[in-house]
């Protein structure tokens, strides 16, 4: 049995509907005007790959860092140093109580929240986002078992994104694999560290990680979710 191309890609059908959907969206936008998102700034990361692609982390937006745990930990520690330099405040919501500090000077501006599970961590992030005092919120879910992460409802991320839009905080969700649909930016990193990494400076490791940035195209353009990959591989 053959399947026609129209069945797989019903362009004609959707072409008729597109206009109606656009009209419906306009109608909804008029009827339920949403608060316009604030023009967020950029928070430098100190990661050459990310800063070169986006200038840093978008404030007022959800960013997902989907990488192996080693890269996640490098990202977190790199952000501590940037927070200390920028003299702003950061929060780390650790869903697996796995955070191990190594730089006491950078910790004075860091609020750490140890949570019992992923859902509790999401609630804590929600509270911090509503607070509006913290410039950078990192929700670390990398060490949480996958089964627990899969139980987080998808609308949770949309809710966090909506909350983030109302603030000037940069929100980073660290996950072991891509799962935050509502993220505006997704960062991935190279994997497979060997024991030789334990003899290198941490700053060299950060530079050696292959940070790749994916940016979500604006929803109003009705185009595929992930616009492009802005890759900056640092040897």
């Amino acid at each position, binding site marked *: 049995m053959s399947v026609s191309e129209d069945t797989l890609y019903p362009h004609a059908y959707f072409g008729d509907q597109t206009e109606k959907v656009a009209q419906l969206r306009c109608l909804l936008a008029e009827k339920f005007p949403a608060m316009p998102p604030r023009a967020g700034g950029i928070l430098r990361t100190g990661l050459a790959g990310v800063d070169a692609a986006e200038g840093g982390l978008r404030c007022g937006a959800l960013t997902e860092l989907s990488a*192996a745990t*080693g890269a996640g*930990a*490098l990202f977190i*520690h790199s952000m501590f*140093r940037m927070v*200390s*330099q*920028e*003299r*702003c*405040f950061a929060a780390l919501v650790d869903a*697996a*109580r*796995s*955070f*191990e*500090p*190594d*730089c*006491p*000077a*950078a*910790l*004075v*501006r*860091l*609020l*750490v*929240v*140890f*949570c019992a599970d992923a859902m*509790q961590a999401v609630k*804590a992030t929600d*509270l*911090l986002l*509503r*607070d*509006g*005092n913290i410039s950078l919120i990192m929700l670390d879910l990398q*060490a*949480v*078992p*996958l*089964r627990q992460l899969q139980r987080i409802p998808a609308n949770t991320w949309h809710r966090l994104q909506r909350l983030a839009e109302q603030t000037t905080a940069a929100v980073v969700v660290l996950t*072991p*694999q891509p799962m935050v649909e509502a993220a505006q930016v997704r960062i991935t990193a190279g*994997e*497979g*560290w*060997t*024991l030789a*990494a*334990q*003899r*290198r*400076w*941490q*700053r060299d*490791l950060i530079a050696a990680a292959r940070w790749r940035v994916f940016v979500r195209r604006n929803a109003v353009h009705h185009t595929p979710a992930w616009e492009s990959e802005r890759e900056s591989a640092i040897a």
Partner: protein
Amino acid sequence: MFAVILLPNFRLQAALRFREEMRALPVALMDEQTPKAGLLEISEAAALAGVMPGQTSPQALARCAKLTILARSLEQERSAQAALLEIAGTLSPEIEATADGFCTVNLRGSRVNDWQALCASVVEALASLRLRAQMGIGPNPDLAFLAARHARPVLVVQSPTAFLADLALHELDPAPELLAVLRDWGIHNLAQLTSLPRGDLMDRLGPEAGRLWERAAGQTERPLRLVRVAEEFCEAFDFEHEIDTVEPLLFLLRRFLDQLALRLGNAYRVAGQMMLTLPLANGSAYVRTFTIPSPTADMDVLFRILHTHLDGLRLDHCATGLRLLIAPTRAERQQFQLFETPLRDPNRFGETLGRLAALVGTENVGVVEMLDTHRPDSIRLCPPRFHELGSVAAPADDSAVGLPLRRYRPPVAAQVRVVRHQPVRLESARVCGTVSAALGPYRASGGWWDSDRWSTEEWDVEMEAGGLYRLARMGHEWRIEGSYDEPLPENRRGAQALVAIPEPGV
């Protein structure tokens, strides 16, 4: 001139301060310590019903079945007296706390043109604190007191002779024997008394009669026993029944803060700390102190802090009372620096911390403090003080080596096969496999001088299937302390299918 501010039925007013709904009802006050002394004070409605002070409760209830008898509360009287003195302190620094419910203020030297307006503003200020006041102004303290007694609610004595002439003799509270003699003589008011020669009166009735004559003539002068107004902002309430829900507490706290914010405003102070005390049914008390991150007199901010805390509070016993004490401080005035990014709203942040503490526990939220030891995993979380941080950036520390550790809390027990003093095989609930490379041992020990002795030998290992881990040996026991890098979930999921893995750190 002197001013006297009088709170009539002071003890009853103090008891009814947060029971507004009872003000129009027949209410009497009784001291639980001395029940045989009878009723101390009664409300106007009770007086109209025929109840009189001094009656025992059965006698009073026989006169008025709807009479409500309240217990006297010393805490509430203290709060009301403090509020009175604070208001008096806005007039002059020379204040005498003459007795409970009235104070005398020396206004000599103050250039006041409109005494009536001044008194009206004081009475209004006390009314906002739920206290009904009468105020009298006179050339000496005694005259001012007499004026306050007759004020409705303000009386300024311009001509002492005319004011005193019509007053009855008992207004000066003479000794009963002396009053009886004077009445026998047909003397009933002060004008009649002052018409008698003072010397002859003293010859016949003694020096007490001379002092009475001087008071009746408005000629007494006495120095005030000055007091310094203590900056004690406290409100208290004793419940008649045990309270097991938070709503009555919040209702009263709102009223307390309403009053305390006014009092703080009168003293040009803001709240630096709040101490909440809940006396419990078993005789103990729950006490909690709140430090206000950014001192304020904003009632809503203070209430939110208390509300957030009480929302998550669980007590073993019911509350029988409520007490809120505010430690005042001066309002902060600071100039932020150009490139500084301080907390936008420190009080809101404090409230968020309270909510987070309620969610995850107080010990699980805060700023990391590393303990003064080399023992692994020696950290604790302390309450953050972001608003006190200076604008100086911490020096960048680039001296860290290697990948940061993700610590397993608690550590995972493991079985390690060692060949030629090096780990070669790892078996645990979390990771299994052959060790392809290892770095170590890194030995550390401490606490040898006391019973809390510890010693550890750490190894960084790379697994053949991928992943970097830290192993630690304490005595003969091995455990995985954490990971530096773990394989991506696809690989881990495969491992999960083989062995049941407990959730880390839960």
